[in-house]
């Protein structure tokens, strides 16, 4: 079998079933909401989500814009990748950066990961959703990813303050989704809910979906911070001495702000090798994200505040 080989048309494998389910979700939302938007994070899940969305409306262009809530601290290779995606025909990729966070010079080094993430991501997202008056926002979160997501609905209801109340979510049966919201209320939609990390990578492999090269191992300049390997991607990174960074063969399992994304030492240079490594280490991918460890249940808290 070669990368890019298409799935057989008549057997219903689990990936075919997941693909069909995700496409169904995209179409339901596009048909029933006035103003949907697809949140785009540049990561592998976003890449798969974009492919599924394109499949849902082929041969027509995407009937909704994509939105990247930028933090100004993404890896440079992510910005390159984003530019390439935005240049594809039929794609309207919007970028929002919280102007207040920029004015106040918020950064993860001086203000810490919490303040940085809250200002750029959570507040930035809320600003952008409000400004765009979006009544539905697709996100690439998966239930398997993190404990607090295991019970997340596919249509996750948000009140007019964009808040998520775990005790007040609508029951969701079959694939019949309740899309009724009042003015100002909205939903977050998770078309990848039932995908696992392995499914994502296998799909990337089978469908030959482009992903940011940072996922593949390469010699990169890194320093150690709080037990994590942080890549020195530009000169904003405070160093103890100019020759502190060491070149190491590393890759990233999840991508976010470069100062907050831990690299893993790896030699995996292609998707099968990534899967091999992932299956043999079996540590949850969020382990490398510094923002999850601030306090007990921190992801759940962020969600209630409006983070994805």
């Amino acid at each position, binding site marked *: 079998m070669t990368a890019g080989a298409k799935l057989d048309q008549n057997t*219903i494998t689990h990936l075919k079933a997941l693909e069909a389910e995700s496409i169904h979700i995209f179409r339901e939302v596009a048909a029933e909401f006035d103003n949907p938007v697809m949140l785009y994070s540049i990561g592998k899940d976003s890449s798969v989500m974009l492919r599924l969305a394109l499949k849902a409306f082929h041969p027509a262009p995407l009937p909704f814009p994509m939105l990247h809530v930028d933090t100004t601290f993404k890896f440079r290779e992510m910005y390159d990748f984003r530019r390439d995606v935005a240049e594809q025909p039929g794609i309207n990729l919007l970028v929002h950066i919280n102007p207040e966070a920029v004015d106040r010079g918020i950064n993860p080094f001086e203000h810490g990961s919490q303040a940085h993430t809250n200002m750029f991501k959570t507040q930035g997202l809320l600003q952008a959703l409000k400004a765009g008056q979006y009544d539905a926002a697709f996100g690439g979160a998966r239930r398997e990813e993190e404990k607090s997501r295991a019970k997340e609905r596919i249509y996750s209801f948000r009140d007019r303050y964009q808040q998520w109340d775990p005790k007040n*979510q609508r029951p969701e049966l*079959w694939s*019949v989704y*309740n899309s009724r919201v009042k003015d100002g209320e909205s939903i977050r939609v998770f078309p990848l809910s039932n995908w696992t990390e*392995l499914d994502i990578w296998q799909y990337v492999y089978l469908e030959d979906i482009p992903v940011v090269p940072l996922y593949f191992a390469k010699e990169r300049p890194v320093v150690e911070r709080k037990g994590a390997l942080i890549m020195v991607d530009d000169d904003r990174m405070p160093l103890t001495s100019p020759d502190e960074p060491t070149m190491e063969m590393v890759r990233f399992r999840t991508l976010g702000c470069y100062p907050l994304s831990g690299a893993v030492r790896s030699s995996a240079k292609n998707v099968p090798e990534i899967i091999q490594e992932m299956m043999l280490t079996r540590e949850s991918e969020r382990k490398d994200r510094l923002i999850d460890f601030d306090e007990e249940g921190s992801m759940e808290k962020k969600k209630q505040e409006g983070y994805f």
Partner: protein
Amino acid sequence: MSDRFDQDELIRSDIHAFLAQHEAKELLRFVAVGSVDDGKSTLIGRILHDAKGVYEDQLADASQTDEGGEVAIDFARITDGLQAEREQGITIDVAYRYFSTPKRKFIIADTPGHVQYTRNMATGASTANVAVILIDARPTHGVLTQSRRHSYIASLVGIPHLLVAVNKMDLVDYDQARYDEICADFLSFGQDLGFKTITFIPISALMGTNIVHASPKTPWYDGETVIEFLENVPISGDRNLDDFRYPVQYVLRPNLNYRGFSAQIASGVVRVGDELTVLPNGQSSRVAGIDTYEGEIEQAVAPLSVTIRLEDEIDVSRGDMLVPTDNQPHVGRTIDAMVVWMSEEPLDINKSYQIKHTTRYLRANIDEIAWKVDLETLEQVPADELKLNDIARVRLTTHRQLVFDAYKRNRTTGAFIIIDTLTNNTVAAGMIAEPTDGMEESEFATTHTGVSPNERKRLMGSAGSVVWLTGLMGSGRRALGFELERQLFDDEIAAAVIVPEHYDDPAMSSLLTNPETCAAAARRMADAGLVCICVVDAHAAADRARAAEIVGDERFFEVHVSTPVEVCAARKSDDEAVRLAAASFEDPSADVLAIDLTDGDDETAAKNLMRALRAAKVIPTR
């Protein structure tokens, strides 16, 4: 840990072989039911752990090192929920979990015990191929009411295969007799529930007995282990491949030359050239092409999401269903269905709900509750209301034609949810029954109001009523009526006055002069939430009694404007008519409020009347 699942060797030595194997896996969804005490969390934790569906850092959270340095895994903690739940020590909702074995990929719907059981289980079970029910083997437990209830709900939502895991066999010394007894107990009711297969396995989730490997502790058992069963139970035959059903989701029109209808195939197979009919409108055409991102295909099978082009330019939009011309579903406005009520707010039989069925929203009224299920005995009992977690058989009328199959035949075109139009919450799930003979199709979908008294009350702030002003002409009734209307309005209570003579249309005027007709009209206004003030001659006591009966005693308030006949006559030019009327006037009984308007101070009189109306709770107290 078991080597049965261990794919590490394959992953290490030949990743491409592993990927090929993983790619070919089928998806099986199962719901695990049972209370915490039955060991459900332990079973799920054990399966996830053995199948390496748990990441090592998550596993570390669930592990404790005891005094002797032994690492003990609390399997139940692996499935731990949200912080909000941990704090309250309860499980609120259905959690979804994922693992795979060399043969299949699995999605577990993990439904909590006790609290809101029915609702959660129905949710988790709605898409499941298999239900795994745990029964505690200990003599004090066995097949309980709860096991029967779980099995019933599993069968209700159409799960084809049931696995009864007889757990805690270690606590009954792996006793075959006890196991056989439980199986027999279960089958005594379980075999009538309509499952395609029922399988029993003696297990100990805690000890790992018969979960992955056949255990030497149960030499008398030669069947499959839990994992073997989940890997092998045939599910491809459960898909309905006979009836092609295509509920159109989205019409693609990227340019003038292309018009495609996108949907996920609910059931069946479609091929290029097939003759299809669009329901409910009934036009037909043939499939010109089936498009996917990968290109055109010759045929497509459920549950794929595709786009169909038709040969003819016929009218198709979202909510329509494409079906084979020679194999059509039912079309109608009256349906019988089983519903599971999922809202704290009970069913309000007088109000209209929205239902969402496939890709359509329709207004619907629940006309009748045929019976509900007593969840203790599983018997049908009469019911006049539906509350949270009730399961009932109801009859619904939709305001437009519904295109459906019976749920038993089709879990997509036979299913719907019920939505409260005020809160937008999903309040119930419905499963459509096979239409029976003699089910009358109503001519108009909604032959009665879809707005209930409670809804009106919520909008209007109060329930309506009728204030009936009786008395002689010249008594000042009319002025009092309008003054009362003004004062009610100032108190934010909507009111209206009926004075028959004020209608320009003489036919209308004469109709309303009849006390009975006037009362019927007033009743409608009161229904709508208004305080209706009637200024109409009803000199006979019998007429007034009849009016009270029509409106309903509890919201009918009679007032006698008792201005003396001399005063009335003096106010009118035709004083003889007043005296004649007075002769036929039958005085109301002493308990009817009398207001003498000799002084003509209708403002004070209306104030007093307001007070009386409040005291009698005809209008709300401030």
